[in-house]
């Protein structure tokens, strides 16, 4: 808990969790048949949805409840049961103007990378830092040059590992989900033709389908110690 000395969001902040209606057809493999039907269904749904980004929607956390469960239809061939379901899923999906607390995970010339623990694609670009801020390449840290009460220069650093209060500026959630698994590392004793090696290097790092742009600009935002009274 920290004290913020003005009309600003207080310590108890939040990220937006919403309930989303989803309709899907779930495949229950025969191995699940021994469990209670709903438990099996719940496990399959959570296994499929938890920690996945729904295109255009947000990050799935957990199944909330069932709205409708159809009959299980067993197909010849794989012996699995296919069940039409409608359920509500808890989804993490923050909105612009929301304020939240995140931990600084990375700091480099492109800005800061913040993390909530369960979600880490939160970036603070240089133009959204407190102004004026600049990057110190030797330490790898961003510093806000401001003034203290006496008018003297005050350099406030943002250390990696500190918690910062940020405001959501923009949330991007891809409508299409093309996230590919990273290329498999080639074992050292395998001889790989040079052409293939270069190709592996060229494959761009897959972009995580949900990204938040955050701002530290504004009263009360940034490192909490900056705003504490005396």
């Amino acid at each position: 808990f920290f004290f913020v000395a003005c009309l600003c969001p207080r310590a108890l902040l939040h990220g937006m969790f919403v309930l989303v209606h989803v309709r899907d057809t779930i495949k229950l493999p025969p191995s699940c048949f021994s469990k209670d039907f709903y438990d099996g269904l719940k496990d399959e749904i959570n296994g499929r949805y938890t920690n996945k980004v729904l295109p255009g929607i947000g990050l799935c956390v957990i199944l909330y409840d069932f709205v409708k469960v159809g009959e299980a239809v067993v197909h010849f061939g794989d012996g699995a049961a296919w069940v039409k379901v409608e359920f509500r899923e808890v989804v993490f999906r923050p909105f612009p103007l929301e304020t939240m607390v995140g931990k600084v995970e990375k700091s480099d010339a492109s800005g800061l990378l913040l993390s909530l623990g369960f979600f880490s694609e939160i970036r603070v670009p240089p133009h959204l830092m407190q102004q004026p801020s600049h990057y110190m390449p030797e330490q790898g840290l961003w510093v806000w040059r401001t003034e203290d009460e006496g008018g003297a220069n005050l350099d406030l650093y943002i250390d990696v590992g500190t918690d910062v209060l940020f405001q959501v500026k923009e949330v991007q959630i891809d409508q299409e989900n093309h996230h590919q698994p990273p290329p498999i590392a080639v074992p050292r004793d395998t001889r790989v033709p040079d052409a293939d090696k270069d190709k592996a290097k060229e494959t761009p790092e897959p972009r995580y389908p949900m990204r938040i742009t955050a701002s530290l600009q504004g009263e009360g935002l940034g490192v909490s110690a900056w705003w504490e009274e005396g």
Partner: protein
Amino acid sequence: RLFFFERSLLRFSGMSGLGPGEVEDAGELQFGSDFNDAEAMLLNEVYMMLESRERSLIKMAESSRAEAKANTLASSILAKTKQYCERFQTPNLDPQIRELRQQLSRPLESGPNVGESLKSFQIASIVNLQPDNAEEAKAIIPSLKNFENDEVEHFLKIYRQISAG
């Protein structure tokens, strides 16, 4: 591994995203025309869900080693989300959550905005942000600007009464 969901299999009611020309701005309460009815959750509610899921995962792990392995990643993500909710949720609120939602959803019985009620998102914001007074509430929950200060005070009073238990 992230799945590619075929649109034909999944139809999201009420969450189709923004249409052309729609601006997403929590201050104006326009998250895309479909989102307005979205049920926003209190952190306490999410925390409760995750705790019960954790209990059943532990039970499953006890009964099957293979399941335990498969659930390790899931349980670590859930653990982290739970940690976040635990840190920022309103303390001592669980028994009162339903009453809170019910009471805060009741429409105003008089005044310039008679008949209006708080939207789900606004209820969650009041409970999660705990503003001290109407002025602060309107500053940190911009969509409340359409209510009179008295009306916001009325909602805050309900919240205080119920959470005081």
